[in-house]
Every structure is written in structure tokens, then in C-alpha cells.
């Protein structure tokens, strides 16, 4: 723990904004993990397609954790890389649509 504030000027923000942001990223990672476990459980139906879909789900989860890791540990700059935000959101949207496909796959 280096305790470097995200402001980078050596002062600590009394509102603990960097710390709150780190915890928000960790909560997001936990929520994503729960969703991934549920999605993999739905995907695994014992055939090749199921295994592939489960693999895609796990890969999305892993990519999310990699993108969020720098923010969750506070090792990056104070301001988020503006590319990361749309990537996170579209990853989540893609996961939701993948799950729709999984549910519909069970119907047919």
C-alpha cells in the first residue's frame, strides 16, 4: 500500500474520492463474477456449442477484470482512460444479449 492519492500532488482528498472509486470498481467486479457464474451454469448443456458459449462468457468476464484492475487497485492515473467506459458498458450489453441467446437456445 503506497497510499498515493489519485490527485497525484501528494495531498489526500478528505472526501476519500479515490478510495470510493476503487471500491466501486471492486463491487462491479463482484457483481460481474456472480453474473458470469450464473451464465456459465446456463451455458453448459453438455455439447460443444454450450462449452463455446461458456468460454466466451468467461473471456468477457476476464477482459472486464483486466480493464477494471488498474482502477480497482489505484495504480493508474487519476482520470479514467475514456476508452474503458464504453468498452465496459458494451461488454455488459454483449453479455446480456449472449444470455438472451442462451435462454432462447433452451426453448428450441
Amino acid at each position, binding site marked *: 500500500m503506497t497510499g498515493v492519492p489519485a490527485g497525484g500532488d501528494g495531498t489526500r482528498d478528505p472526501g476519500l474520492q479515490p478510495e470510493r472509486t476503487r471500491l466501486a470498481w471492486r463491487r462491479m467486479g463482484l457483481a460481474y463474477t456472480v453474473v458470469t457464474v450464473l451464465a456459465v451454469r446456463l451455458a453448459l448443456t453438455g455439447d460443444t456449442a454450450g462449452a463455446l458459449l461458456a468460454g466466451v462468457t468467461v473471456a468477457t468476464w476476464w477482459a472486464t477484470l483486466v480493464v477494471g484492475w488498474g482502477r480497482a487497485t489505484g495504480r493508474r492515473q487519476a482520470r479514467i482512460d475514456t476508452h474503458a*467506459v464504453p468498452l465496459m458498458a458494451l461488454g455488459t*450489453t454483449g453479455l446480456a*444479449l449472449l444470455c438472451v441467446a442462451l435462454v432462447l437456445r433452451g426453448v428450441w
Partner: protein
Amino acid sequence: MSTVKRIIGVVWQAIRRWFDPSDLNSVGSTPDYRFSLANERTFLAWLRTGLALIAGGLAAAQFLPPLPLRHLREAIAVALLLLGATVAVRAVDHWSRTERAIRLGERLPASRFPAVLALIVAVGALLLVVAVLARGVSG
């Protein structure tokens, strides 16, 4: 036809704005980093809301018993999943519009989305209450 064209144009502009960080990093002036962090946390909170809806949809698909109406279980699951996807897309759109407004010193963007989402969740919950009561009465 022109309406469709206009809608496509608006959507395209929004997507371009999300993925054009050089634009988002150059308009106006760089604000106090705490404002950006607060905006980032709000985005994450919305993303978690979306993830919770997705988890609800996945749980409905896997843990609900078969319902009297055919495919009702799957319909509930798909509705929750699509709602989660919508929340995630809207989260990034609101984040980029807020970031832009902070940089330009404008008013923060107003949104009806929270009210609409609250109404949808409330109506869904009421329907569930009715369904549970109806089942209790009929045995």
C-alpha cells in the same frame, strides 16, 4: 423515412461520442478530478444495476419452476436481460454527456430514465404480488 434517418443519425453520433475520447478530453477545460471520479462511480452504479437485472434474468431462467403459461418463464428472463442491456447502454451515454457538461460548465443532462426504470420495476413487482396472491387463493 426522414424520421428513421434522423434517429439513425442521432444514435450514430452518440456512439461516435462514446468512442472518441480525444473529443471528450479536449472540449472545455479539465475539471477537478473529483468530479470525474464521481461521474465514474455513478456510471459504475448504473452498470451494477444492469448487472443485477441480468442476474435476475439468469436466475429466473434457471431456478423458476415451469409456469402455467407456456414459455412465460423464458419471457420473464428475456425481459429482465434486455432491461439490463438497456441500462448498460444508457449508463455509458449518460456518463459521456455528463462528462461533456462538466467540462463545458453546462447544466448536467436531465433524464427521465430513472423514473421510467422505477415504474417498470414497480409494475413488475405488483404483477408478481398479484400472481402470488392468485395462486394462494386458488390453492
